[in-house]
């Protein structure tokens, strides 16, 4: 019993120590904010109130859902192209040698940089945003899939070949499971990058497309900045962006554990 209470005591202490600094910073922010008395000065209590209003009215959940829908659409597009291509590149030296120059040439180009082209080709709506997410997610996915597909134990491949299993079946039953941990790393990075890219794309579309925006949390933030200057609400959006990033990552990690019990260590 003593050891249980001791560990509980230690956990409790950790919480107190960990929460001390954030609470202190919040308190300082609240005090400075209220003493400065600016009409637009954001303070924690007002941020919480703004969050309540935005959630109750349904605006914030709607915007988040819209952005999430775009992220998943772009993410799927990237996965459908990058995973099969990456597997082929990892398994065939000829494919890799010929495709790799393209990947390496376009990889250093930041996804946001092609936003002007996306707007030009696809307009300021969902399609352009999906394209940016797909572009951003494509590179971490393909690089990690190639690495995973290359790392397959050659003995397993030889065994499959000896048993006369066709190339496609080999890829499905040997290569994919072996590459899965690496693919999941790619998926995690891609999801994080895609979520950042969607916020940037929506912000930039809201900022530069001349009002013809298309919703989403990024645009919501820009409207609060440009038209109504409500800093409390901007901060609510920022917190929401962070929380969603965290939840997405946790969900993917849970999926990873569920689909690969052998990788538990």
């Amino acid at each position, binding site marked *: 019993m003593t050891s249980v209470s001791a560990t509980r005591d230690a956990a409790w202490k*950790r919480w107190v*120590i*960990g*929460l*001390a*600094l*954030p609470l202190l*910073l919040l308190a300082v922010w609240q005090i400075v904010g209220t003493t400065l008395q600016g009409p637009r000065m954001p303070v924690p209590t007002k941020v919480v109130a703004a969050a309540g209003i935005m959630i109750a009215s349904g605006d914030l959940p709607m915007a988040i859902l819209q952005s999430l829908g775009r992220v998943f659409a772009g993410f799927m597009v990237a996965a459908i192209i990058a995973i099969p291509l990456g597997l082929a590149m990892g398994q065939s030296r000829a494919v890799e*040698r*010929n*495709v*790799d*120059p*393209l990947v390496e*040439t*376009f990889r*250093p*180009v*930041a*996804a*946001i*940089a*092609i*936003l*002007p*082209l996306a*707007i*030009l*080709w696809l307009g300021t709506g969902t399609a352009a945003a999906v394209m940016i997410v797909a572009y951003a997610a494509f590179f971490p996915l393909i690089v990690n899939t190639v690495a995973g597909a290359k790392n397959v134990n050659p003995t397993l491949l030889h065994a499959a070949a000896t048993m006369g299993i066709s190339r496609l079946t080999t890829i499905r039953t040997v290569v994919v499971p072996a590459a899965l941990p690496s693919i999941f790393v790619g998926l995690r990075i891609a999801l994080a990058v895609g*979520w*950042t890219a969607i*916020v*940037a794309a929506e*912000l*930039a579309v809201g*900022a*530069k497309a001349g009002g013809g925006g298309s919703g989403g949390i990024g645009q919501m*933030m*820009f409207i*609060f*900045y440009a038209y109504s*200057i409500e*800093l409390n609400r*901007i*901060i609510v*959006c*920022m*917190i929401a*962006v*962070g*929380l969603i*990033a*965290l939840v997405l*990552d946790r969900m993917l990690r849970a999926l990873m554990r569920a689909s690969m019990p052998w990788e538990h260590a």
Partner: protein
Amino acid sequence: MNWRRPIANAGVYLRTMAVFIAVWWLVAIWTDNPILLPTPLIVLEAASELALDLDLFRQAGISFGRMVVSIAIASSLAIPLGLTMGLSPLFEKVVDPTIEVLRPISGIAWIPLALFIFGIGNALPVFIMTYAAFFPIVLGTVLGVRTVDRRLIDAARTMGVPQRTIVLRVVIPAALPSLLVALRVGVALSWTAVVAAELIGAPSGLGYAIQWYRELLMTPQVMSFIAMIGVIGYICDAGVRWLNRRYTPWAAAR
């Protein structure tokens, strides 16, 4: 030195890019709309014009300069913080939750608030890039310090080496590989953030130039600047990798 392999590789690279450019050219002729998709030749002309004009290099220099300043600020804040966190468990317990709370909020999400605070100018992109580079460098430094062989520190302590010297001569060199990997991530993230920040809130730089030419519907110029972003991004990454090899040859990945 055997030159056969690099030459063969360059040949494959050129062949792939030639196919890409041929496809691009055909699609461009087929769409027949130089605003939507100019031919490679028109883009090349626009790029050489911008290069002769030095505008291409001027904007690139501005963006690159901002990135160097941001990385310098981020490192000078993050490395001491990371070292202290790595060396003092209590300090880490106090500071770590705050960092973990802030980290998921991407630098780009700070743009509207930062626009309000700093206005349009140099300060905004520098702030956003510093923020973006800060977290990977802190975490990399902490990780680096944690992986330092305890026996080396104990040995130094036994010999009566003062704490300051231990940090400078034992901890930092041992943490360097992890730190440089973190620096690479930080540079990549801040270079991505610069484009977003300049696209929205800067009066100059590559992101601004892209936006400017897009509004004029000068697609060849837009493409030239996009290519420049890729080139600088590549050079930065190659630079940090060179630092990796030069200063931590025992740990360099490639």
